[in-house]
């Protein structure tokens, strides 16, 4: 177009005419929130992707959770030090870590004015735990007594013709309302981390009317948080408009008059809009743009560690990988620092720990030597293991091009440092990838990723040591320590056991830690007091002020 315009005088005239229209119309880029102290509502925008669900019990991806977090308060929250503090709960107590008594603060209301009671929580949890509702956060309720009755097992597995029978009840037997603001929760086993888990958005309360039409509640939830949906609410693929909840009495009142989640298809576009000042907060600056963002945004670029980890897991059901020396050799032959520099632009941090730095009880490089880049030692271990026979297949999904990039580096390092020359990639469609792993079809080390549910080492360890782990790892010793931690009298005391469990796991090394993700965030000049919370992977929307 520009090429044409230069060479052809009248076409150039036309182009100039077209191009100058916007210049004349000025201010045509209205977000409808051009607030310059002229009494207009002060609102800000946040870049997001299209959420899958807005009902707390169903919302399990981070884009959905960002919105649910603005709409709902929970019983507890995690403060900036990683400690759990009460939010809507007046008290959460237990003598045996198994039976918990929860008192809900009086005087709190939903966006429709309905009071938040013990029943609001019990209703919400029963709804999410009831299998036939098909809510994805269902498994978070698995340790409450009576969960099995709401989620009968399929008698002959996925492949069999029979289907799971319909549950006989839709109420968790472990939940009991004592009085208006008090309820009791009985767990299947002692679990000292329970108050921590309650900070997750999946445990938010539900108003009375919602159960009658869950689909409507999912599209237009009535929450308890600092912001509520406006009349236009969730305009799919475009935006979600929220306003300040005037009747809010909780602990995180909104400073701004409203906020809008703008839906972006691509992070690159969202970033361009942030630089152009057309969106105020972006929580996922693409790694490739980081050095530019640092330069253009200055102090308004903020990186915080996140709870998300990448691991390389070994399929122990393949006997070649049952040899620990081989696993050590591979782990020590990987130059994590170099990969993080070249592939991720230093957006991630290399790690030798199973848990993330934001989790209480984290120790830097808890793994020690086996997760350190030591090519000579690696070769020694490799020779001790008797080398490797056959093709080494590296598995990853096609969800993001960076996976193949870092796997290529891993393959080269294994060739160079261990002399494994026959390395092949197995790049699997994303919809297929995880079922391949859980069905034990991976024929070589594979990329594994963990997004933290709640800041407790237990969350990382149970997934890898427990019976349900995908590696066929016999994690009994590790799991015993986790269980001891779960039974400990306090969260602080439990950490000691979790650290020992992590040590046991790392010694066996069925999975080697690679790197810890960081959140790369930025904001525009229009907004102030933007504080990013590593536990939410988002800003504290309530504290954001609009200039």
């Amino acid at each position, binding site marked *: *177009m520009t*090429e*044409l315009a230069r*060479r*052809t005088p*009248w*076409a150039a005239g036309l182009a100039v005419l077209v191009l100058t229209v*916007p*210049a004349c*119309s000025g201010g*045509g*880029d*209205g*977000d409808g929130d051009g607030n310059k102290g002229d009494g207009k509502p002060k609102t800000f925008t946040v870049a997001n992707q*299209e*959420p*899958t*669900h807005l009902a707390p019990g169903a919302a*399990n991806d981070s884009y959905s959770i960002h919105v649910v977090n603005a709409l709902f308060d929970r019983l507890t929250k995690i403060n900036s030090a990683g400690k759990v503090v009460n939010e809507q709960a007046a008290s959460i107590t237990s003598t045996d870590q198994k039976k918990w008594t929860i008192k809900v603060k009086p005087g709190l209301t939903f966006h429709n004015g309905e009071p938040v009671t013990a029943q609001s929580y019990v209703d919400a949890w029963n709804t999410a735990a009831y*299998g*036939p*509702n*098909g809510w*994805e956060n*269902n*498994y978070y309720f698995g340790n409450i007594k009576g969960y099995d009755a*709401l*989620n009968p*097992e*399929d008698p002959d597995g*996925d492949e069999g013709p029979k289907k799971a029978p319909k549950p006989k009840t839709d109420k968790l037997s472990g939940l009991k309302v004592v009085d208006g603001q008090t309820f009791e929760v009985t767990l299947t086993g002692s679990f000292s981390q329970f108050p921590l888990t309650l900070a997750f958005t999946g445990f938010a309360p539900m108003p009375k009317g919602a159960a009658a039409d869950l*689909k409507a509640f*999912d*599209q237009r939830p009535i929450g308890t948080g600092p912001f509520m949906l406006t009349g236009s609410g969730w305009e*799919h*693929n*475009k935006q979600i408009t929220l306003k300040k909840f005037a009747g809010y009495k909780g602990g995180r009142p909104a400073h701004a008059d409203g906020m809008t989640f*703008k*839906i*972006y*298809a*691509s992070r*690159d*576009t*969202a970033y*361009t*809009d942030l630089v*152009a000042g*057309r969106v105020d907060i972006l929580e996922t600056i693409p790694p490739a743009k980081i050095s530019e963002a640092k330069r253009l945004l200055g102090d308004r670029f903020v990186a915080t560690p996140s709870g998300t980890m990448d691991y390389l897991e070994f399929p122990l059901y393949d006997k070649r990988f049952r040899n620990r020396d081989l696993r050590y050799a591979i782990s020590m032959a990987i130059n994590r620092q170099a990969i993080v520099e070249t592939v991720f632009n230093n957006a991630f941090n290399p790690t030798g720990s199973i848990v993330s730095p934001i989790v209480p009880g984290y120790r830097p490089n808890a793994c020690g030597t086996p997760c350190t880049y030591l090519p000579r030692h690696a070769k020694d271990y490799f020779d001790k293991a008797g080398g490797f026979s056959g093709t080494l297949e590296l598995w990853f999904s096609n969800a993001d091009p960076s996976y193949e990039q870092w796997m290529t580096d891993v393959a080269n390092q294994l060739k160079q440092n261990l002399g494994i020359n026959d390395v092949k990639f197995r790049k699997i*469609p*994303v*919809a*297929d990838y*995880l*079922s391949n792993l859980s069905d034990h079809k991976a024929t070589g080390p594979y990329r*594994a*990723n963990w*997004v933290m*549910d709640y800041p407790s080492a237990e969350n990382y360890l149970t997934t890898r040591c427990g019976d*349900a782990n995908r590696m066929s790892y016999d994690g009994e010793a590790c799991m015993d320590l986790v269980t001891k931690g779960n039974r400990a009298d306090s969260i602080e005391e439990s950490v000691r056991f979790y650290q020992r469990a992590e040590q046991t796991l790392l010694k066996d090394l069925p999975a080697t830690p690679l790197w810890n993700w960081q959140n790369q965030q930025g904001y525009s000049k229009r907004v102030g007091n933007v504080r990013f919370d590593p536990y939410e992977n988002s800003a504290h929307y309530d504290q954001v002020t609009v200039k």
Partner: protein
Amino acid sequence: MWRYAVRRVLQMVPVLLGTTLFIYVLVFALPGDPIRALAGEKPLPDSVYQALRDHYHLDDPLLVQYGRYVFGVLFRGDFGETFNGQSVGQLIADSWTVTAQLAATAWLFELVVGMSLGVWAGLSAARRGGRGGGTRRGGFADAAVLGGTTVAIAIPSFVLAYSAQLVFGLKLGWFPTAGTDAGWPMSYLLPGMVVAAAELGYVARLTRTSLVENMRADYVRTAVSKGLPRHRVVVRHTLRNSLIPVVTYLGTQIGYFMAGSIIVEGIFNLPGIGHEIWLALQIKEGPTIVGIVTFLVLVYLFANLVVDLLYGVLDPRIRYD
């Protein structure tokens, strides 16, 4: 002509049924379990998994699924439901208004700029070439259009899209960088120009070639020797006849533009058809894929019908029976 149109519309029914069945089979055959993928890295209890599969009827045999789909569409106007609980009918309606605005903008650019350039180059070539000159190149305008369109066709659309976004959106601030906030036409001008840039080259060249050929036709010589003014010869006699191939091309372009542009819609964050089908394919969202593709087949069929009918308007010698 009306009987012809009605017959053509009736012919669309088997074509539509055939294509939807074909697409259904293809989606069915896609590897991967969409419900498992929904849960990401988190465990999905059997009960929830089964509830979701039942909700989307994923366990039924292919023909039962297809039958239910066709029945739903025909008798209840129900195109199914996306994995985030949105009706596919509504999704198509919403995303299509976006794509239609983009398509209209791009198409207008293509029509006006492409044809103007073609006529300009064509007249220049005809004048220079003269009698017996044939389609030989000539004139500054001809060379300029040829060169310019070659460059425009050669640049990949994502390069053009990012450059345009950077220069006109970010640096100069003439247009919104992305999104539909500013409405039509502001939000659509820049992406529209990007989509049209490569295509208008073809329109310009088609118009030019066709015009140059027709300028040598006998009836043009007759018109000139009758002493008709030049603009009348060009506009009424030559151009009108030269437009048939161009109209055919522009007609198929409607279908092409209506299919949306995955790349341009993605870069400019326009939630249109191309963007939606791309997202749906990634998560194997059957109802959305089938719904959108069926809709696109319809658009193509109608665009072709309109083109066929337009022939008669442009050239009265063409008859329909």
